[in-house]
């Protein structure tokens, strides 16, 4: 009888494990599923979200894509084992199997490895999220940001521009590439100010003013929707955000009776 150390023992066991037929087949299945899910995750969410119009939205789309890709191998492990079990380990017949499966109860290394990997993944997601939060919050919160006051009320949005002579409008006009800070409030119930393609959302509360900021970086017409059920015509509480060139913005301000700052 040879005397082996526990390390040799463990590595022997590990080697025997990976050489097993079922382990190899599950591995291949896992690989295939991971590839499919990575391709899906890398393309579909971002495609569905449409083109973003601000660094914030680009960051959000990147997050969705990255998280989807990161989730792919995890989902694939679960689904590969589930799928393989139905192919290779399925009991054919309507009655109880005559004999039982192997009495495998505890596998501490597997549990530890699993918890470790998921914790590492969790820490990674967290750090990514915090960094993303930092960049998104800093984006528009500069001292020279243009201020737009947003007022929600059942069931319209009103935008006013204190720095451009307090002009009011029910369409949101923003100059491209300029940071803008929104001060949002409500006259009645809770609404939620959501500019979809700019990737910003903050609730409009009665009696409070909330803030969000963004730097629009693409010219176009985007959707402003209410994202908090606010009564009968919540579904109709929509308007447009027009991101235009600086000149067009000044023209719009002037046309509406204000003075550009």
């Amino acid at each position, binding site marked *: 009888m040879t005397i082996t150390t526990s390390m040799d023992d463990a590595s022997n066991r590990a080697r025997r494990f990976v050489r097993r037929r079922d382990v190899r087949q599950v591995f291949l299945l896992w690989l295939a599923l991971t590839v499919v899910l990575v391709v899906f995750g890398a393309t579909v969410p971002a495609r569905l*979200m449409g083109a973003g119009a601000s660094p914030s*939205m680009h*960051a*959000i789309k990147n*997050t*969705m894509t990255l*998280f989807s890709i990161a*989730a792919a191998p995890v*989902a694939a492990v*679960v*689904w590969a084992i*589930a799928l393989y*079990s*139905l192919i290779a*380990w*399925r*009991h054919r017949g309507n009655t*109880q*199997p005559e*004999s*039982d*499966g*192997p*009495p*495998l*109860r*505890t*596998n501490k290394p*597997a*549990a530890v490895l*699993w*918890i470790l990997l998921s914790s590492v993944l*969790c820490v990674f997601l*967290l750090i990514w*999220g*915090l960094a*993303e*939060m930092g960049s998104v919050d800093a984006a528009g919160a500069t001292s020279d940001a243009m201020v737009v006051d947003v007022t929600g009320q059942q069931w319209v949005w009103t935008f006013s521009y204190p720095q451009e002579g307090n002009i009011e409008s029910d369409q949101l006009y923003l100059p491209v590439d300029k940071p803008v800070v929104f001060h949002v409030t409500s006259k009645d*119930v*809770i609404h939620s100010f*959501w500019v*979809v393609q700019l*990737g910003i*959302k*903050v*609730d409009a*509360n*009665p*009696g*409070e003013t*909330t*803030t969000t900021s963004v730097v629009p970086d693409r010219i176009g017409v985007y*959707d402003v*929707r209410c*994202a908090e*059920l606010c*009564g009968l*015509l*919540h*579904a109709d509480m929509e308007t447009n955000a027009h991101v235009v060139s600086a000149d067009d913005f000044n023209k719009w301000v002037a046309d509406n009776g204000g003075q550009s700052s």
Partner: protein
Amino acid sequence: MSEAMVKLGASPEVDHGGGWMRRLNLGTAIAGGVILGAIGWFFAHHFTDSTDPRVSDQVTLITLACWAIGFMVGIGAFNGPIRWLTGRDQTHADEMFLAGKDQGVSRYFRFTTDHKVVGIQYLVATMLLLGCGGTLAMMIRTQLITPHSTFLGPQTYNSIVGLHGIIMIIATIIMVTGPFGNFILPIMIGARDMAFPRLNALSFWLLAAAIPVLLSAGFMGGIPTGWSGYAPLADQAPPGMDGYLMAIIIFAISSAVAGANITTTVLTMRARGMTWNRTPIFIYGTVASVGLALPALPMFMSAQVLLAVDRTVSGKFYDAAGGGSPWLYQNLFWLFGHPEVYVILVPAVIALMELTPVFARKPLYNFNAAVLGIVGIVGLSVMVWAHHMYASGWAPDLNGPFMLTTEMISVPTGVLFLVVIGTIWRGKIWTTIPMMATYAMLWNFIIGGVTGIYLSDVPADYDLHGSMFVTAHFHYTLMGAGLTGAIGALFYWFPKMTGRMLSHKLGLVSFWMVQIGFNVVFLGMFAVGLAGQPRRVFTYDHMFAVGNFVSSIGAYVIGLGMLVLLYTVISGWRRGPIAPSNPWGGKTLEWAVPNPIPLENFEVLPVVISDAYGYGEGDVSPGHWVEPAEPLEPAHAGAGAPDVETSTVPLQEGRAE
């Protein structure tokens, strides 16, 4: 049970026990509710100022409260306390009557304390609620099948969205703990009944009182705020909102009572020898869920009590103009609301975890990890609530910490997946409907869990919050994992609860229709959510048309599948094949009792000598339990009681792989 007296010898006059309770049943309960409700309505009208804009809420709440009290009087819920007050405690004959002895079917319509009766009552209540909620869902999806449908106007649509939500929330809270936590759990731990049989009946009948209150909201303008009932919109709402908040207040009391009962039962009434290591995982899951509900439901109740004050007497809890804050409502609500989703999810997933070893013929994998997973989820769930409020502006600096706690929940959740796939690994997979439910859960819960991680990321949530993405996420978790788990549990335990088998073929039809329909609905919903469709909208932009159309088709498939399930259950209950007492070869104690189950479950209380997962251990396994040579006193494996071995069979440690 505090002074249970054995009736020794024959008395000249046979005392049938029960007293007043003999005459009280569902009929007298409804009569009591209607009469007292009418009296309350009359006096409320008389004593309120009809020019007060709040008068309809005052009258509605008083009427509904009187209905509830009258209903409870009529079912005999106050009989116990009054007899206690007057010192006339229950006799043994009273207890036997209350337990439903020799009463046949009528015991299901009474204040019956037998946990098996209560379990069946909860099952019927759950099915009723799911049916109502499901019908509303069909109406919702019909409205949304095209962009500018006029099938329902905005008022009707908004009000049924909220009603659908709250009905389903209540249904899913009770769907596993109610039927199976009551019927199966005491037998599974080797007890004769619950710790507090009369509280058991009370918790069911409180729910029964609350259901008409809730459904009445549909006739009083519905719940046009969504199921979450945010103030101050909830302040504007019609009297249906009063039905909502009164139903919740009653339901919270019912839940607290049930939670105390189930937890005490498990803590103090496990069979001798059932140490925590030998306690089936379903017990852990149920106790975790109801234990979590104990501090959580009162938060919901509190939010509604304050709302009631605002609505009836113009209180200023949520009215910003008077120093109130909508953020107060949101905090109270989500302090309940997040733990609540685990109250819903954990019993369903853990029920599947309990049945998977039976259909894989393998021990539960990493039992300790499963327990840690449950504890981790429940423990963390009280620290994540404000991830529902990232976009509310209430405390932007707290968004980061809540993102941390929320993302951490993925770790113990992942452990649960490890346990299930580890149990399946190399098993002998017997693809019964319960086992198929486990596979469906593995698919649905991965999608639900991963999409939850997207939502936990603060900037991503700025895009996704309040969109259909959220709706799809929580349907994947609560319905895809939760309801699927409940259906699996139903097919698993139906033979024990009713003595009949459910049709496997019909079960297959329903299973595939529901699961395929479900995935079609909610994958389509993720798509429109990512594209920018808000939630709770009765109409939407043309750009979302395809996704919504697809979702609605899927919904009809679910509807048909659920009708097939209903037919399966009813026909199985009435004429299904008689079930053997252990059709699945399970090892937990409920499979050891014969069908029909004796009133007090066990002739002789068993002694547990090992856990219930000894599959594949052949002759070496000692088995889960033995019958002691001499009948024991009732189980007292409670706090502090030493683990006394009465068997000399040596225990086997589980062997590692």
